[in-house]
């Protein structure tokens, strides 16, 4: 690749391209309701990016669109405009923009927004995804990995553990579908997933493991709720996984080469 072509916005564009099949399938099946929800989310996220650009000179990012898509797809149903605006504002401002914009955030803003909505309004039901939308997550993951925008090791680690869980029969199909969509939309995020190769494998495996654990032991939880909770905990653990991978690397180096 030509040096200088790859900046933050190129990565955001590649992510958008990867999400295109998923978004199109979802809009096709969801109709105007889905389109209106997406438009509202894009509007709110865009306004906050604009506010932070004007007040703190933070460059707005095209990643706003991926955040809006993830929130619009996964947010609880029939929330109404006011609650959705509140949740999106909280997630985008507290999850991303106060840290200095996309690329400096610790957790994915969409995860923050979804957790806020889930904890704040527990009475609303989570969306249920049919098989076609979940299948569309596979081309999304392929495009993401091919363009290098999504960490392949995270996806591979998650797929490995999920396959094992499905084969032993402890992961129901509905949860698997929701977990796949959340994996592509939220967990395989280049910013908030682990940054070392070993850390990425463990990151993906941890996500799938948590989903399996919740599906097994959390009675009464919706599939998307399980997946979002697992994604939140995984993204909080990601820096720790990186730290462990680095410490391991340093220890190995010290054993091979002596004191350095």
């Amino acid at each position: 690749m030509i040096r200088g072509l790859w900046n933050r916005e190129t990565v955001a564009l590649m992510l958008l391209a990867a999400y295109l099949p998923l978004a199109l399938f979802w809009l096709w099946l969801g109709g105007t309701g889905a389109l209106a929800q997406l438009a509202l989310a894009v509007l709110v996220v865009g306004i906050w990016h604009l506010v932070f650009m004007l007040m703190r000179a933070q460059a707005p990012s095209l990643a706003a669109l991926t955040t809006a898509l993830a929130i619009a797809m996964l947010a609880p149903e029939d929330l109404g405009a006011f609650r959705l605006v509140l949740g999106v504002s909280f997630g985008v401002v507290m999850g991303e923009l106060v840290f200095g914009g996309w690329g400096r955030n610790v957790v994915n803003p969409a995860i923050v927004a979804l957790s806020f909505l889930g904890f704040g309004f527990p009475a609303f039901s989570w969306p249920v995804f049919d098989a076609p939308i979940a299948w569309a997550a596979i081309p999304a993951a392929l495009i993401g990995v091919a363009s290098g925008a999504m960490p392949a090791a995270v996806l591979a680690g998650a797929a490995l553990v999920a396959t094992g869980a499905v084969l032993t029969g402890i992961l129901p199909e509905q949860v698997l579908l929701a977990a796949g969509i959340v994996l592509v939309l939220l967990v395989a995020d280049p910013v908030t997933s682990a940054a070392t190769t070993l850390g990425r494998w463990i990151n993906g495996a941890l996500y799938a493991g948590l989903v399996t654990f919740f599906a097994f032991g959390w009675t009464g939880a919706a599939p998307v709720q399980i997946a979002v909770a697992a994604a939140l905990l995984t993204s909080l653990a990601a820096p720790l996984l990186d730290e462990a991978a680095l410490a391991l690397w340093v220890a190995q180096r010290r054993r091979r080469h002596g004191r350095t």
Partner: protein
Amino acid sequence: MEKRTDLWGTLTDPLIRQNPVTLQILGICSALAVTTTLATAVTMSISLTVVLTLAAGFVSVIRRHIPDTIRLIVQIVIVASLVIVIDQILQAYFAEISRALSVYVGLITTNCLVLGRTEAFARHHRPLPAMVDAFGNGLGYSLILIVIGGLRELFGKGELFGIQVLPLADAGGWFTPLSLMLLAPSAFFLLGLLVWAIRSLLREQVEAREHTPPLRTEPAE
């Protein structure tokens, strides 16, 4: 004349400019734990203010007789005795609120705000300024507690002091309670937002940067 303005400054400084919670980040534990309703927040504020003021007075009176090596023990004994008195009064007259506050009244003993004021100020000043300073700090703590407690009760239940203020959607109104507000994380968020708001109004409270960012080098074309 000099004396009076000094006292006034000692009293009003801790309200916003030197607020113990938002600037010095002291006493966070109880500020987060007891602010689910306004009633508990107010009770806690009054208890802490009384304990702090009296403890500062006592410590200041005997400040020349406290051996330096055991000063912390002496201060904690004084604070703990006062806390026990307050706790007994609450249990006798406000049994319900006392149950809601549970261990947090007892934990005023270990509140870093109390120890901080007696250790840093009362030990070096005469009783009147010491008590004024302690009272001001108590008021500053109370201000934050009442603001956060009010917000949490208003948006979490639509009530203030247990009286319905916002009509609930279940009862034909328009307000849907935000149950996140009754959980502990919301107090963190509110406190963080409050600190952010205060520091963007009063720029001198902003902490110095820990690192200086390197000069940005533009990538070669």
